C-alpha cells in the first residue's frame, strides 16, 4: 500500500506521541521523591532574622512566639507551604500516573486543561484552574503533585484533554 503524505505525517505524529508517553512513564517509574519546600522570596529571612526584625519593631518575644506557633498550627502565611509539604503522603507519586495515562491517550500535540476540584484548593492551583497549555508547557511549569504548587503532593488537580472539556453553550428550547 502506498503511503500518502498525510498518512505518513500521521504515522510519525503517532510515533512521537507514544515515545513521549513512554518517556513520561519511564520518568514516573524511576522517580521516587519527597519534596520538602517552603515559601521563599528574594528577601527571605531566616527564622532568627525574622524574630530579630520583630523585636526591632517593638514586639516582645512572648508575642512573637505566640504568633509563630499559631501560624505553625494553622498552616498560615509563614509555615503553610512547609506544613503542606510535610503532610504524610505516598500517594502523590503514584497519582501522577493518572496524568501520564491521559498523555498516552491524548497525545503530546494536544492541549491539556488544568482542572482543580475547587474544594480547599490552594491559590497556585486556583490560578492554574481552567488554563489550557501543551503537555510540555505544563511539564515546564510543574505538573500536578510535582511540587510546583503550594499543596505539593496533596494536589487533587488533573490535566484533562482540552478538547474533552470544551465548554459548549447550552441551547434552551421553549
Amino acid at each position, binding site marked *: 500500500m502506498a503511503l500518502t503524505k498525510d498518512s505518513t505525517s500521521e504515522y510519525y505524529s503517532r510515533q512521537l506521541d507514544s515515545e513521549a508517553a513512554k518517556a513520561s512513564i519511564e520518568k514516573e517509574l524511576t522517580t521516587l521523591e519527597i519534596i520538602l*519546600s517552603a515559601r521563599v522570596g528574594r528577601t527571605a529571612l531566616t527564622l532568627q532574622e525574622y524574630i530579630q526584625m520583630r523585636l526591632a519593631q517593638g514586639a516582645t518575644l512572648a508575642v512573637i512566639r505566640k504568633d509563630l506557633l499559631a501560624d505553625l498550627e494553622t498552616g498560615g502565611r509563614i509555615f503553610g507551604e512547609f506544613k503542606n509539604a510535610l503532610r504524610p503522603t505516598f500517594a502523590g507519586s503514584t497519582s501522577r500516573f493518572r496524568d501520564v495515562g491521559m498523555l498516552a491517550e491524548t497525545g503530546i500535540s494536544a492541549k491539556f486543561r488544568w482542572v482543580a476540584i475547587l474544594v480547599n484548593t490552594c491559590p497556585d492551583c486556583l490560578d492554574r484552574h481552567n488554563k489550557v497549555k501543551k503537555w510540555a508547557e505544563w511539564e515546564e511549569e510543574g505538573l500536578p503533585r510535582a511540587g510546583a504548587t503550594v499543596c505539593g503532593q496533596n494536589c487533587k488537580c488533573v490535566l484533562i484533554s482540552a478538547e474533552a472539556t470544551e465548554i459548549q453553550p447550552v441551547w434552551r428550547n421553549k
Partner: protein
Amino acid sequence: MIKVEIRNKINFPDIRLQEELEVIADKIIIQDIINGIKARKAVVGGRLPKNEPATILRKGHDNPLEETGTLLNSFKSRAQGKNKVVISIMGDRAKIGKYLQDGIDTKKGLKQYIFFGISKDAFRRSMDYVRKKVKEYTSGANKR
C-alpha cells in the same frame, strides 16, 4: 479630621526554612524510613508484606527490603535552591524501590512495599522539631 488609609498588597517578609528542612529531611524523614524498614512497618501504617517463600530461602531470613543493606544506605537528601530539599533513592535501588512501592503481582494479588514517604510519626516529629526551634529562638537565649 481622621484620615484612614487601607493598604493592599503589604509585602510581609518570607521566612527561609532551609536549615530546618535539611535537618528534618536527614534526621527525621530518612531515619524514619530506615527505622520503618527495620521494624517492617509501612509508612502508611500496618506492616510491610512478607517475602515470598523462595525469597526467604535465598536470603535466609524474612526481613522485607533487607538483604545487603544497599537500599537502607541509598536514601539521600539534597538541597535545591533556597527553600527546598528533595529526598530520593540513589543508584539502581531507585528503580527497584519504585517497583516494590507500586506493587508486584503475586499469586495472592498485588503486594505493595510502601516504605518511602512521610509517616504520621515523621510528620509529628517534624512539627515538634519546628515548635522546639521556635521556642528556642524566642526564649531570649539567642537574643543578640
